[in-house]
């Protein structure tokens, strides 16, 4: 029920932001469409903890700030590599064990690794993730598991 309320609120906000209408007729049409989408989502059985991780919103924001910093750092590194006359690249595929137990935790970790330039998640199998790293530097980051420790722990507890 909590997730349904969250979904309805989110959809209503999205509808209003995208349309910006205030006329009663149009707003009622918007309410109808929000209810319809919520009904379809309920039928598809996707309204749950996984699609609406309400319980970790605050911690997620802190994680996002950290991720943003990492993205900026590795972007600068990538720009230097691309612009150098002889690119210092030594690509390899590494396999690391992740501490994440839940599906959501693995998804967050995999996406974060892909989002930072220099490393791309190739496959997640069990608790092993396969990462393609561009050079020694970026490979080291993943091997040390800095992201792994930073992914909010509350993802673990709930699911």
């Amino acid at each position, binding site marked *: 029920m909590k997730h349904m309320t969250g979904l309805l609120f989110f959809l209503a906000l999205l509808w209003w932001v995208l349309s910006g209408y205030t006329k009663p007729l149009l707003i009622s049409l918007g309410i109808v469409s929000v209810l319809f989408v919520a009904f379809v989502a309920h039928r598809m059985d996707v309204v749950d903890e996984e699609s609406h991780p309400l319980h970790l919103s605050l911690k997620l924001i802190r994680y996002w700030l950290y991720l943003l910093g990492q993205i900026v750092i590795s*972007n600068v590194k990538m720009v230097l590599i691309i612009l150098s006359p002889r690119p210092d690249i030594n*690509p390899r595929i590494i396999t690391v064990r992740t501490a994440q137990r839940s599906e959501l935790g693995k998804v967050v970790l995999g996406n974060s690794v892909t*989002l930072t*330039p220099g490393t791309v*998640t190739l496959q997640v199998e069990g608790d092993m993730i396969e990462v*393609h790293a561009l050079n020694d530097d970026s490979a080291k980051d993943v091997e040390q598991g800095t992201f792994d420790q930073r992914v909010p722990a509350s993802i673990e507890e709930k699911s």
Partner: protein
Amino acid sequence: MDILQILSAVLLGLGAILGVVGAIGILRFPDFYTRMHASGITDTLCTGFFIGGLMLQFGMTLASVKLLLIFMFMLFTCPTATHALAKAARHGKLKPWTRADADAGLSNEGRVS
């Protein structure tokens, strides 16, 4: 020209530089897997700078919220698309380029193992 305009111009300029650098990377790098990393630059920070610069142009309007939505959406979908591509390439047995191949004078561009 006030301070917001200047800040916006700086952000847009940085975004433009990152975009072009990413495109150069996509042309320079030796194989598909390394090119993925180059396209990662343009997907993340370049988009972020452009959206930030445009938000300053639009000011506190509904348009800025829409820009933020676009940015969030791209931040979620770009790694997913990259991952789908990488997984498909692995499934298609595309062999990754390594330093050793280059030293041996081999160009295994597009080689399938």
